[in-house]
């Protein structure tokens, strides 16, 4: 009984029809969170006593870096489910997650460079945090490339799932790099075990942006997976019926 939902996921058609109603909700929630969070963070949150206004890029930099890491786990875990249970839907999620994650990693790297120039005095430095983040970007590109490199979708799924699984090693390294080695990048500000070292007036818009990014990620991943379902199931009757409606 408890596993019924999991077995139902084996049917892309069931998933497609079930998630139809979710899209507008996710869109409304994510856009309202992102707009409120951005206006609050950029216009109303106080400036930092040391960095002035330049710290405000944190409202883009930190959420995109969070989602770049969380999105990698989404991709690797769905890759593993695809490998073990041969579930078509999981392979489609893995394929859809790769470009989204690559874009988020790129955004985190670029905003980090823009932030680094005025505060540190350099665009780029090869410290452990930044270098491991660049490796994450290449891992995403590798998964995208492997998806396109094979004639047979099954072979492509298997190869990219294995790459994604091997790459999961990088995620804890990125996360802990600022504690394990001497880096230019400062340690984590939002802490789960002790008090965060950011003033509440700056923290709330940041948490709002992080939540907004999570919902937005879910929305984009869902939309991308649904279009992937239509592409791969285009020869089935239900997709043809959908097209002629």
């Amino acid at each position: 009984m408890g596993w019924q939902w999991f077995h139902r996921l084996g049917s892309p058609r069931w998933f497609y029809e079930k998630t139809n109603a979710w899209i507008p909700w996710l869109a409304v929630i994510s856009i309202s969170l992102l707009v409120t969070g951005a206006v609050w963070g950029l216009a109303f949150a106080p400036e930092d006593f040391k960095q002035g206004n330049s710290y405000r890029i944190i409202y883009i930099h930190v959420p995109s870096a969070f989602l770049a890491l969380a999105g990698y786990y989404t991709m690797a875990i769905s890759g593993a489910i695809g490998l073990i249970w041969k579930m078509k839907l999981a392979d489609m999620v893995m394929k859809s997650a790769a470009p989204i994650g690559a874009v988020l990693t790129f955004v985190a790297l670029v905003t980090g460079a823009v932030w680094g120039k005025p505060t540190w005095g350099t665009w780029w430095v090869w410290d452990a945090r930044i270098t491991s983040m660049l490796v994450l970007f290449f891992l995403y590109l590798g998964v995208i490339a492997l998806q396109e490199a094979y004639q047979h979708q099954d072979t492509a799924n298997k190869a990219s799932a294995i790459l994604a699984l091997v790459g999961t090693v990088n995620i804890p390294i990125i996360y802990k790099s600022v504690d394990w080695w001497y880096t230019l990048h400062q340690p984590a500000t939002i802490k789960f075990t002790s008090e965060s070292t950011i003033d509440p007036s700056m923290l709330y818009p940041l948490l709002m942006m992080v939540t907004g990014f999570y919902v937005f990620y879910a929305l984009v991943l869902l939309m991308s997976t649904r279009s992937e379902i239509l592409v791969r199931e285009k020869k089935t009757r239900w997709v043809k019926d959908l097209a002629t409606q």
Partner: protein
Amino acid sequence: MHPVRKQRLIMVLFIVIFASVAVGLMAYALRENINLFYPPSKIAAGEAPVDTRIRAGGCVLPGKVQRASDSLDVNFLITDGAATVAVHYTGILPDLFAEGEAVVVNGKLNGDGVFMATEVLAKHDETYTPPEVAEAMQNAGEHQKTCEGMSYGS
């Protein structure tokens, strides 16, 4: 669970664990090289190579920054609490450079133990505070913890 699926699950776990161990060993072997900079105590202990391009990181000792009046030359001391290293630099310092703040300097250590820097980077900490709150904290006698709180690892 179906035996075939179980086998695949074990395979997946094996891939993840094997990759983690391999990368972990690699990081362990390269542990010194992954560090971006040497702390002053390692330089003072003679662990840093002389006349090779290295980076050093530490806190700028308050009251020890000397600026030349007719050039961009600047001399300062950096510390990690255990030892201090003298740094010489010619050029424009980043905005966040200040006494009591953390920096990472890039350059060569000369024979006299003076660090000839070609680049100075400001290392900011992980705290974000509005100006009014920072002022109130200083009035209350709570000293800024930028340097004391800075993590130097082990």
